[in-house]
């Protein structure tokens, strides 16, 4: 019992303490985004990790849930409806679930790659439809709303970002517990069975199509909750919330985190938001880094970051590292750092150079001003990358030889 409770308590503690450790308003905004993205990725992994269903259109459910939430908030602000803002994400969830009932029926009729292709077609379809009905979806500008509605209850008006963060954290905790619990139910286990061998699942009495359909509805519910939280956080919902790009981002982050572990999407959501929201403030090459990082994960660690963490934990538990392995690991990290430095240097210089015609200032990297036209920095970058990669390959061969 303690083994199950302890990680959850730690998780709750982290959620509670995070804004105290990072109190700046920019950090709060980042943490809020992480919260919604983590929930979104967790809901997505119900399909991908638990059910083996690769969907390219998950944002449909979170996006439509967000639209549902913002419309509700606007009705509440007009005075037509009395409803606590705290429960608005629930409305988002129900909207998502409803869409899951309708759209999920179409998508889950087929399995495998066909299912993936249907979701691709569906997300494009829904995206295009959203732009066709400006009354409902606000056209290009989207629908905006106000999260401060009516009188504050117990001092909570959701005006300050910190209150919004705790709302998100609360919903995240509750939903995460629910999603984890679902894995230990008959439906959850049969979903795993359908993932592993849908034909055999039929021969033990279960309709694989029905199982997938139910899983999708549940997943769409949680996605809708995340959408509702986004609506509250940003106070605006636009067409890109339901788009293929957003869906792709969810897929990217979930996969980076690791689909075979429950906490994988949590890691993925955090790392993903760090790349897209935090890194983007420091460099314009962040999309390149994200893409390169993603490909690196796909090619070297298809189990995601969670599988690395798991391996590390198991290593520690089995008695730690012997001195030789520690040396090897340190050497590997050094080589990787060299290569990374070189790549970052080269990339930043390249991006700077591409903007040089617009008369941008010389590149400021790590406190140094670098002239991107001089050959020296380029040679330095090349040397760093070459040394790093050579070192990695040598260590790799040595590691395999043992």
């Amino acid at each position: 019992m303690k083994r199950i409770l302890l990680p959850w308590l730690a998780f709750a503690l982290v959620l509670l303490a995070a804004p105290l450790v990072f109190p700046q308003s920019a950090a709060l905004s980042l943490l809020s985004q992480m919260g919604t993205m983590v929930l979104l990725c967790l809901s997505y992994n119900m399909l991908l990790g638990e059910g083996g269903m690769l969907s390219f259109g998950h944002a449909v459910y979170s996006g439509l849930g967000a639209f549902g939430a913002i419309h509700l908030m606007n009705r509440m602000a007009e005075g037509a409806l009395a409803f606590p803002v705290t429960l608005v994400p629930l409305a988002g969830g129900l909207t998502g679930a409803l869409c899951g009932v309708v759209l999920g029926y179409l998508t889950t009729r087929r399995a495998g790659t066909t299912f993936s292709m249907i979701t691709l077609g569906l997300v494009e379809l829904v995206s295009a439809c959203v732009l066709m009905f400006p009354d409902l979806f606000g056209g290009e500008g989207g629908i905006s709303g106000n999260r401060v509605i009516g009188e504050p209850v117990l001092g909570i008006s959701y005006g300050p970002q910190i209150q919004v963060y705790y709302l998100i954290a609360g919903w995240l905790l509750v939903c995460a517990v629910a999603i984890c619990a679902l894995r230990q139910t008959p439906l959850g286990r049969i979903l795993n069975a359908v993932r592993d061998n849908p034909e055999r699942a039929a021969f033990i009495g279960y309709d694989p199509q029905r199982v997938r359909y139910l899983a999708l509805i549940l997943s769409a519910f949680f996605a809708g909750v995340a959408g509702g939280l986004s609506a509250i956080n940003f106070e605006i919902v636009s067409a890109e919330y339901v788009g293929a790009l957003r869906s792709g981002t969810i897929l990217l982050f979930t996969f980076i985190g690791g689909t075979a572990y429950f906490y994988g999407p949590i890691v993925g959501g955090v790392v993903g938001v760090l790349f897209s929201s935090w890194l983007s403030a420091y460099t314009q090459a962040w999309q390149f880094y994200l893409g390169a990082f993603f490909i690196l994960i796909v090619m070297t660690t298809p189990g995601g970051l969670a599988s690395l963490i798991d391996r590390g934990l198991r290593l520690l538990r089995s008695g730690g590292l012997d001195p030789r392995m520690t040396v090897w690991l340190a050497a590997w990290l050094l080589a990787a750092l060299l290569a990374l430095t070189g790549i970052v240097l080269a990339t930043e210089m390249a991006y700077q150079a591409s903007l040089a015609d617009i008369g941008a200032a010389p590149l400021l990297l790590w406190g140094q001003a670098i002239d991107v036209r001089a050959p020296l920095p380029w040679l330095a970058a090349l040397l760093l990358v070459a040394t790093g990669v050579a070192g990695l390959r040598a260590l790799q061969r040595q590691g395999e030889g043992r």
Partner: protein
Amino acid sequence: MEFALITFLNGLGYGLLLFMLSSGLTLIYSMMGVPNFAHASFYMLGAYAAYALAGVLGFWPALLLAPLLVGGVGALVEHYGLRIVHRYGHVPELLFTFGLSYLVVELVQLVWGRSPVPYRVPPALEGTLFTLYSTAFPVYRGFMLLVAVLMLLALWLLLRHTRIGLVIQAALSHPHMAEALGHNVPRVFMLVFGGGCALAALAGVIGGNAFVTEPGMAAAVGSIIFVVVVVGGLGSLAGAFITSLLIGLMQTFAVALDVSLASLGVQVPPASPWAPLLCLTLAQVAPVLPYLLLVLTLIVRPKGLMGKREG
């Protein structure tokens, strides 16, 4: 009559461009079993490569070299990237191409910037081929049609009437058997992938100057070619051909026809909730049509029009 004819020719041109793009994709799809999300990126690379080469060597050498160059890049990607990821399963393969498409856009923006580049139709191919009624039909449009038809013919001849084509067909459907018979199947795969990318690049060379050459061009056609491949049927060139033309014509006619149910005389009470739907013109609905077709096909006939097996 004039309208129908011009729209038909335009639709034909668009459809044939789609076919050039999707022919490579359907071959790769049937080989890998997973859709190659980076395919449209090679289309984009072809256009940019042609732009770069045409500036130095002129259009005609670029027409030949750009597809070969990009095809070579494709072969390298297959050899050093895809092959490694292949053993992890279908999902990582698919995600690899997904990440690749992301990366290629970034690289293109890095080298050539974010705005469209002035990749122009060569002076030799400017002008009007003929004038139908009062609308001019450009020479370049005719050139595009010619290249597309020649490509189709060449592909068909290669696959059906040459030895290498036979080996490719065998390796596509039964790789283990083909390997057991002594053929270098990994090399065949590399060839098919590179070839498919070269075809996409050719489409880029031809289409890039007729339409616009910019970083967003891959995303613009990316989803549509998937519709073509899936609706046409996995691995079926004939299916891709028919579907490309179907979608090309359908889109062009829809965009040109600015009618809505309301304009056709259906009574629309202004306060009715159906009002926005009934007032939608066909042109506004046009972007949705291919995806509607995709979803319907996948539900009703997942094999596609002429495919032999489900994806």
